[in-house]
């Protein structure tokens, strides 16, 4: 597995190792975006599952959404580099996701306020209204 990751970060070939790294930094390829997206996603999921503060959970959800956005953009870039004229769809999706995230944040924070007014807490382990 280490060999595999190494192969992603440090491509070997005819050119020098530094050249490769520089090229990768200036013009990263698709896999790097995907890896970063996956990391963001995992962080977000971990936050949703582990944090008790509902605000933080919200923020984690934003991370998940942005991981998805990153994937969209990455694929859009990749596909346009491949010559696909319809690749702009990924960017449009990202804009949609941002809009939806904004709306969700507005409603979600409203729910949080309402919840707090009723329950006087924003710790999720004290809220079990979904039971039964």
């Amino acid at each position: 597995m280490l060999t595999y990751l190494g192969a992603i970060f440090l491509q070997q070939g005819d050119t020098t190792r530094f050249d490769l790294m520089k090229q990768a930094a200036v013009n990263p390829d698709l896999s790097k975006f995907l890896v970063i997206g996956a990391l963001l996603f995992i962080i977000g999921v971990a936050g949703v599952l582990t944090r008790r503060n509902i605000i933080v959970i919200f923020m984690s959800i934003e991370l998940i959404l942005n991981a998805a956005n990153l994937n969209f953009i990455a694929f859009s870039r990749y596909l346009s580099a491949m010559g696909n004229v319809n690749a702009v769809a990924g960017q449009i999706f990202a804009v949609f996701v941002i809009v939806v995230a904004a709306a969700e944040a507005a409603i979600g924070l409203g729910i949080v306020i309402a919840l707090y007014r009723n329950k006087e807490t924003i710790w999720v382990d004290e809220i079990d209204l979904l039971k039964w």
Partner: protein
Amino acid sequence: MQKYIWLVPLLPLIGAAINGLLGRKLRFSERLIGGIAVGSVALAFLISVAAVYSYGFGGHPEWPKPYLTSQDGFSFNWIPGGAVSVNHGAQYALLNIEWSYQLDPLSSIFMLIVTGVGLCIFVFATGYMHGETGFYRFFAYMGLFMFAMLVLVMGSNFLMMFVGWEGVGLCSYLLIGYYFDRQEAANASRKAFITNRVGDFGFALAIFGIIATFGSAQYVNVFEQAKSYPIELIGHWGVLSWIALGLFIGACGKSAQLPLHVWLPDAMAGPTPVSALIHAATMVTAGLYMVTRTNVIFQHSQTMLLVVALVGAATAIFAATIGITQNDIKKVLAYSTVSQLGFMFMACGVGAFAIGIFHVMTHAFFKALMFLGAGSVIHGMHHEQDMRRMGGLKKYMPYTYWTFMAGWLAICGVIPFSGFWSKDEILWNAASTTHIPLGWVVWLVGTIAATCTAFYMTRLMAMTFWGRERFLEAPAGGEADEAHASAYDKGLAPHDATFASAGDRPRHEPGEHVGPVHENVAHHVATHGHGEHHGAHIPHESPPSMWVPLAVLAVLATLGGLVGIGPAFRTLTGTEHPGGHLNIVTWLNPIIWNPVTREFNTPEGGHEAAAPIETTHAAPPVAEGAAEAGHGSVAAVYGDTGFNLAHAVEGSTHSELATEWIFIIISLVVAGIGMLLGGLFYVWRPALAGVWSQRLRPLYVASYNKYWVDEFYGLTVTRRTMDLARAVFSFDSRLVDGIVNGLAWLSRLFSRIVGGFDKYFVDGLVNTVAAFIMRLMSPLFRAAQTGFTQNYALVMVLGLMVAVAVFFARDILAVFGR
């Protein structure tokens, strides 16, 4: 013009449909209903006349051959039957039955009779049925009848004939039962229908036989093949004899011949125009049409010819003797019709088919005339049908009287009225026939029947139109009253007022004749209650819509016979069959099969080929058999037929013409004797009738009770059928119902057992298991429901991971396997 004959049956059907379907809903007036009905029939009549004229007289290229509407495309493939085996399965034929109409000499005569006489009767009915509640229904049925009758006579195959045959049977049933609220009419309609079923059974079997033998139902094909079959003499009983037997059973039912005649007199329960149209002029002659149509088949079976002749003769004398003693004017005419139908079958049986059809035609004229005249009398007498309450109507109903007179002279056989020509020809052909043995018996019986006919018709005339005006008098005591009382019991003249107004009597417009009607009812009650004197009602002449048809028919009954002037008058007319096409024998020749040439006759061909009967007696009467065999005569075909009356007479006169005249004089003399006797008994010496009825008491009683045929059938057939029905019913209700009920009881028992098992064992088991599982499993599932969102999210994520792991299992293994 003949290509439009498909309209002839269709027009009355359309009229009937309009009247029947819309007449009640839209409240058609009587004038409109009558106009539609009469108009449709009149149009059909005009088309018939034009078609027959252009076919027979307009130089039609195929004149003697039948014209089928399929030649001009007015037909359709009605029953695509597929392959049928013929000749006992030896061959197969493709049976396709088409719906097309056939115009040939026979069907054209019937078309003209049905539409022409029908038109007169329709016009009469508009007057007679005036004020009836079911006016639209009556004309719808009548139109439907015209359609069925025209299909019967115009169809080009046996199946169409059968359709028409059943159609007229249905309409007869409907119209006899027109006053269905009267028990008598309802019974009579059922009787007619059921009796006809017996005949239809034979007819249907004959059609099956025809299809199985010839592989076709089309007349043209069947007769073309039948021509070449060998002739079955007496003693030989082949397939054509069987077919002819079936056909004749059908004809017996429809034409009221001896074993099956019982329905026709009862059919008089229907309205009088129905009696005139269906039970005198057209439907009952369908049997004659069928026998003549299939004369090829009948002439192949000498046995069946003999049977036809003997049944006809027996029916003629049987019905004529009953007619002598009946007192109901319509009953007399009904038995007269049966008797005349017997004459027609007599003609067919002795091989003179054209003469039989000639008598159909003249009979249609004079019998329709007499029935309508009787209707007019009944109408004028305000409900009265009993001749003993009539008399002297000459003064009150002159038109009816004079037209009825023409019918009377015609049926008695007075020269030159129409009945004379046809009846005389029948008797002459019976005497001179070489088709069958026993021709002289047929002649003798026919002559006696003709005497009886003249007698009872004179009696009817005398009791109705001449003599004392008995309706003015108190009812005579004794026998008359007794008979009247029995008529009451039979429901002929019911006791109470409600029934009296529902009889076969046209209701009159309110205010016109209501008085007499009520008086009449009062009279019935009074006669039977206290026997006191009562006021009489004065008869009146019928309206023009009724006597104009009478006048038309009277002209036809007088002059109609001139189309069939017999060969005996050849010295006067110059030819044996004067009139060319207009002579009915010449006209019908192309459809009559000649057993000598084994071909159909030629229309204008020589008399030798054209008229087999006439050629026979032309041969020397001496040395029959061997000498004649070489001449190709009918006698050679049918062999020695024993004693022949005409030949015997000719042997002593040595002149053919003199022989014919001797028979004409005999028939005129017997007609005169009958009329004179009638006059003596009922005009000059009325007391004689009572004296002689006492002297011949047994005969009188037998005749008055119609020889107890109805009682006999009641005892042997009707009661036995009902016994059988009762036996079957009790078998059904005891054994079959018992089995069914027992089985039902067993299933109920079984279902209770099964139900208990289900309820206590199966349900109990299911409930126990369910309760056990619920108690065991519920804590586990309950524990999973924490209510914490994060738990659920965790499950989702885990599930997602599992899904991804499964979906990419191969790739993941490939990566880590490296």
